């Protein structure tokens, strides 16, 4: 098992005929993902990787059962494409676009919530359940990183995810589902909103969160742990411990503001809730092992 997507998830790809969409569609299929159809206005009737293309999501869902959609759509058209998917009743949406205007991301999130849909992203590599299915862009072919297993991973980063996940796998673990919630200040889905899914997933035995300075998503995980929403062991790796205040390092999520969102505050909150926080990527594996052994004992 896994969360959000598995072998049975029927996936629609919006923007499938573009270079990126077509390239990653191929990889999604190779990993075993059920890619059902694609959408590109004006291209209905074409086939990409033997999958039919439709002018619109409505036309696609009229012909196919669709469980989820992934968008390979430029950031300034993302809002429209997400609203289109929601309008057609799709309730799991991944948008990888990096650079979605903030005000539009707010609208996307509000619309998704109102419709009971979950939008993962933007500015993310997507979601992968190694060995089963992928909606996104992960180097699943590097086995020392994307080995199947029992650890759920949530991340705000890209390259750092490969780094930390490699350490988890090197320590002898594998990944159930990895969800990149993305690095934007307003993500479609927050860490804490994924927790009930992981909690219900029998395969996932423990969680790793890859966070960073700024925002409050790590603190929200701590709250969920203390209120019993998340009872599985949690290990976090947080980047930016030594970042100078006021300097803007990396994306907008990483602004330290008003005493909130500091790495120190996040560590304190997570540890108070029973989690462990790794200082270095290489420590994540040991901390996982220690927490899991404590549980068994």
């Amino acid at each position, binding site marked *: 098992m896994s969360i959000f997507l598995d072998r049975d998830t029927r996936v629609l790809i919006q923007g499938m005929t573009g270079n990126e969409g077509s390239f990653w569609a191929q990889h999604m299929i190779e990993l075993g993902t059920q890619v059902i159809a694609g959408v590109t206005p004006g291209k209905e009737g074409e086939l990409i990787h033997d999958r039919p293309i439709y002018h619109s999501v409505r036309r696609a869902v009229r012909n196919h059962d669709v469980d989820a959609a992934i968008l390979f759509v430029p*950031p*300034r058209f993302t809002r429209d494409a997400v609203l289109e998917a929601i309008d057609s009743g799709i309730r799991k949406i991944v948008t990888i676009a*990096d*650079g*979605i*205007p*903030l*005000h539009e*991301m*707010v*609208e996307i*999130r*509000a619309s998704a*919530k109102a419709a009971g849909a979950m939008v993962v992203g933007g500015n993310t*590599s997507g979601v992968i359940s190694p060995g089963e299915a992928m909606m996104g*862009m*992960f*180097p699943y*072919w*590097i086995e020392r990183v994307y080995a199947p297993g029992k650890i759920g991973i949530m*991340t*705000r*980063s*890209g*390259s*750092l*995810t*490969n*780094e930390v996940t*490699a350490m988890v796998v090197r320590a002898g673990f594998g990944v159930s589902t990895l969800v990149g919630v993305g*690095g934007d*200040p*307003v993500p479609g889905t*927050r860490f804490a909103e994924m927790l009930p899914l992981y909690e219900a997933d029998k395969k996932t035995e423990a969680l790793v969160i*890859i966070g*960073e*300075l700024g*925002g*409050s998503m790590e603190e*929200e995980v701590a709250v969920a742990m203390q209120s019993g929403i998340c009872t599985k062991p949690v290990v976090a790796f947080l*980047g*930016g*411990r*030594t*970042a100078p205040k*006021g*300097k*803007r*390092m*990396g*994306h*907008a999520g*990483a602004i330290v503001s*008003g*005493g909130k969102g500091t790495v120190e505050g996040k560590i304190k909150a997570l540890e108070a809730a029973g989690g462990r926080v790794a*200082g*270095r*990527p*290489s420590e994540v594996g040991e901390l996982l092992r220690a927490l899991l052994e404590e549980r068994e004992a």
Partner: protein
Amino acid sequence: MKLFEYQAKEVFVQAGIAVPKALLADSVESVAAAAESIGYPCMLKSQMLMGGRGNKGLIPRVSSQAQARSEAQRLFRGEYSIKKILVEEAVDIQQELYLSVTVDPLAAEGVVICSAEGGVEIEQLAVENPEKILTEPFDMVRGLQSFQVKDLSYRLMPSTEATKQIQKVITALYQIFTSYDAELAEINPLFITASGQVIAGDGKLMIDENSMHRQKRFERTRDYYESDMEFEAAQAGIPYLQFDGDISLMCAGAGLTTTVYDLINYEGGSIANYLEFGGPNYRKAYEAMELCLRNDSKVILVVTFGTIARADVMAEGIVDAALRLKADRPIVTCIRGTGEQEAAQTLKAAGFEPMFDTEEAVRKAVALAKGAGRP
């Protein structure tokens, strides 16, 4: 994109928000002339993007031309490389409010924030007396409603002559927030003058970087950057921050670069520059290394773990750049991800040692930086 105070105030004026009489000056002479025109006392407001100007002594109040000249000289020649000074009338202040419109990222909605006790201590007030900070969340599709503005104004102030003016200022600031795709539109302090006028004492406007395609009004000139290097890096589209340590970072991805930054600090090393080479920039090895080499650093540390940013392409880029730029210092390479085997071969063939463990690579870079004399 954060605007300078004088730019934010131009936007305010267009939206109908009153600001103090002011003139922009870029030399001691023009400051003196502006001060004469504005009259004394007046404020010399250093135009810089960093906060806390007042506490740093960068907003002196002057009462004569001589004082204006000497203070202007001090500011232009000071450590903050100030390029422009806004010479502004000293307003007869009765009360200082705080007002801003921004996005609440957790609730994913807009929010107007205000307080009857504005000014420089607002962050402290927020911690110590949070009940004095008033908020009014709003739906960003439907927009801030007139009734919300009215209710907020009466929460902020008893009904006075100023209340209706404040409603207009809130509405105008909200409209700026919307039409400029702002992350933040802030007035702190918002003055109420002795004669009951409501005037923006300062202005902060941060435009969402992701919306710049529809916000072409502001050119990102050299003034926006703290150093020439940061400006040039930005022109090349490369995220870059200047520090003054020993190790030049040339890493991929914000998260990984920040992590390497941390690891160097843990190991007792120091950073010369933060540089993100990856994502859309993964073919820009030459430009990135050129920036690093202009630093007085001792080692260049390359750490990547790319998916689309292919390791083999980046390795070739590093080898090529080092050769063409005649790199004069050690380069530690830890290039992983898609194509990492080919990358390792390329690096080995060129005499580099391909590493696969970030922490080992960091330790090596720190050791090299400590051991190395200047070549």
